[in-house]
């Protein structure tokens, strides 16, 4: 039987030098949908949790209504949808129901008038309750949370809800509009629930983000995806990062003694998933060495497949030949470099938050250098601008922080997938008639 999923386990080096000491190794576990027909068959159970606070008035609300219209038009008749709106009060505008009631849903939404403050946890709780009504392992159960404001002292409640949602297989995609919201909270909500997060600067991009969300749900190839790595004696996992749809440090949950167990939620059949494991290998004599075994388990409910497992071994060869041991795998190297930029950015931001200006500046400078090496000029410039802001004001700018937080997490996205600051080039195709995606300089 052909596997629904394919797994590749690639080491940073096929051959490690014999050094007589412990050394670092990196394993990239890459998971892709196998056959073309393996995905797209899961119906959705989609809960929209939308901020209608006073600050959403005008362009933001108009674009939001249009985007929700797009969602209901593009969900199938068998999909479920609910719409919860919140300010400092909550209203279940559309209780969980089949998406085929399109006109009624749009009409209800048209009446929404922005007002009040922002209390995210109440909205999220009510929205998750709606999704729970239609919850089924056969469906892609997902919540989209959109806000433009700081929530009122209920961050911990939001995170508890996100954690709980993740355990129940409900991923939350969190979207922040403008600059006056807490990116740390929205990123954590996404990470805890195994979801995604986006920053939208211009309300006109709301539609695009919603479109991506619908397409993402319709491309789900497998659910309950889990990576387990069982290490051989002496091999120690150090850190684990999931990398798609964004780089996320999952070490705290995933490193369990000598093993790695990472829950990854659903697999987007078009984008796949990849996990980077940083480990240390013990001193070895020349020869082939088995670092451990990687197993992925998953469900494909539409084909009645549950707990399917694929295993592969991680091998390296220890060699005394320095030239052989110097060869590095380009794909792994590139990913490790992106993760390195992410780590530096994360440390820079936490140093800045703690008021350690000198340390934050140094980390930002280091991040800028790595970003330049990666060809990410725009992000490198943002890091350099923040160094100046930090020197002048002692803090980072709201926009700069968001740009770095989101930009470094999404370094793993192909140019063709990046959702902000890009557009299709059809309108002004170059001489080669290229159809690739263009990003703004």
């Amino acid at each position, binding site marked *: 039987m052909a596997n629904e999923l394919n797994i590749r386990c690639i080491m*940073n*080096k096929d051959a*490690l030098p014999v*050094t007589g*000491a*412990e*050394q*670092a*190794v*990196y394993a990239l576990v890459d998971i892709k949908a196998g056959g073309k027909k393996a995905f797209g068959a899961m119906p959705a159970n989609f809960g929209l949790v939308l901020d209608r606070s006073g600050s959403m008035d005008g362009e933001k609300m108009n674009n939001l209504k249009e985007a929700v219209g797009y969602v209901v038009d593009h969900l199938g008749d068998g999909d479920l949808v609910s719409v919860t709106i919140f300010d400092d009060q909550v209203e279940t505008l559309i209780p969980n129901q089949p998406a085929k009631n399109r006109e009624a849903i749009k009409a209800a939404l048209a009446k929404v008038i922005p007002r009040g403050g922002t209390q995210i946890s109440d909205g999220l709780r009510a929205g998750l309750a709606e999704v729970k009504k239609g919850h089924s392992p056969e469906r892609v159960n997902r919540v989209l949370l959109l806000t433009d404001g700081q929530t009122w002292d209920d961050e911990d409640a939001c995170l508890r809800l996100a954690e709980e949602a993740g355990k129940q297989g409900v991923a939350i995609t969190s979207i922040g509009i403008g600059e006056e919201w807490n990116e740390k909270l929205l990123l954590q909500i996404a990470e805890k629930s195994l979801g995604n997060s986006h920053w939208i600067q211009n309300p006109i991009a709301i539609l695009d983000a919603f479109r991506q969300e619908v397409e993402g749900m319709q491309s789900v190839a497998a659910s309950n995806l889990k990576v387990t790595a069982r290490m051989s004696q002496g091999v120690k996992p150090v850190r684990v990062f999931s990398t798609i749809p964004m780089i996320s440090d999952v070490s705290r949950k995933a490193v369990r003694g000598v093993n790695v167990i990472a829950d990854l939620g659903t697999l987007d059949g078009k984008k796949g998933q990849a996990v980077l494991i940083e480990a*240390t*290998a013990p001193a070895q004599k020349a020869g082939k060495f088995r670092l451990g075994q990687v197993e992925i388990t998953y469900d494909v409910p539409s084909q009645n497949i549950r707990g399917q497992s694929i295993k592969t071994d991680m091998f390296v060869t220890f060699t005394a030949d320095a030239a052989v041991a*110097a*060869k*590095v*795998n*380009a*794909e792994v*190297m*590139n990913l*490790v*470099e992106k993760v*390195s*930029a992410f*780590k*530096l950015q994360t440390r820079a931001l936490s140093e800045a938050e703690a008021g350690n200006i000198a340390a934050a500046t*140094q980390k930002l400078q*280091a*991040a800028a*250098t*790595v970003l*330049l*090496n*990666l*060809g*990410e*000029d725009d992000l490198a410039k943002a890091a350099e601008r923040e160094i100046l802001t930090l020197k002048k004001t002692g803090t980072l700018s709201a926009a700069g922080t968001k740009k770095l937080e989101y930009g470094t997490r999404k370094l793993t996205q*192909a*140019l*063709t997938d990046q959702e902000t600051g890009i557009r299709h*080039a059809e309108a002004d195709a*170059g*001489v*080669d*008639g*290229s159809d*690739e*995606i*263009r*990003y703004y*300089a």
Partner: protein
Amino acid sequence: MKCKECDMENIDGALFCEECGAKLDMMEPLQDTAVETGSGSQLVLTSRDGSKLDIPAKDEVVIGRDDPVSEVFPDLDLTDLGGMDSGVSRKHAIIHRTGAEYTIEDLESTNGTYVNKKRIQPHVPQAIKAGDELRFGKLALAVQAA
């Protein structure tokens, strides 16, 4: 293993310094030697992992990525180096060779051609030599003497 940039001690085999992000434990990807002048001088392009791409011995070498659908087959195909995801156009740039002199010209690529991190104007050839860094979209290659 000590980082040459910041003196931080890193575990053997680490690819990048935990403290400053500098590259560790690598072959030297860039060679600073100037290109030898005179006939027969050859340049190669080296990717960041060390793999080499010979520049074919022609006066004009088109760089881009193969696309069988639109039947575009540049002389130097960057597909295997991740050209698609890095935003390399099908016909991205052209390297002109006159004797021992090389220039690069951007062919109005979507995501630009860069020489030493500066974006070059389309259709304005710019001289290149060993030691330079070229970038096609987000794909960086070092120029080296063959």
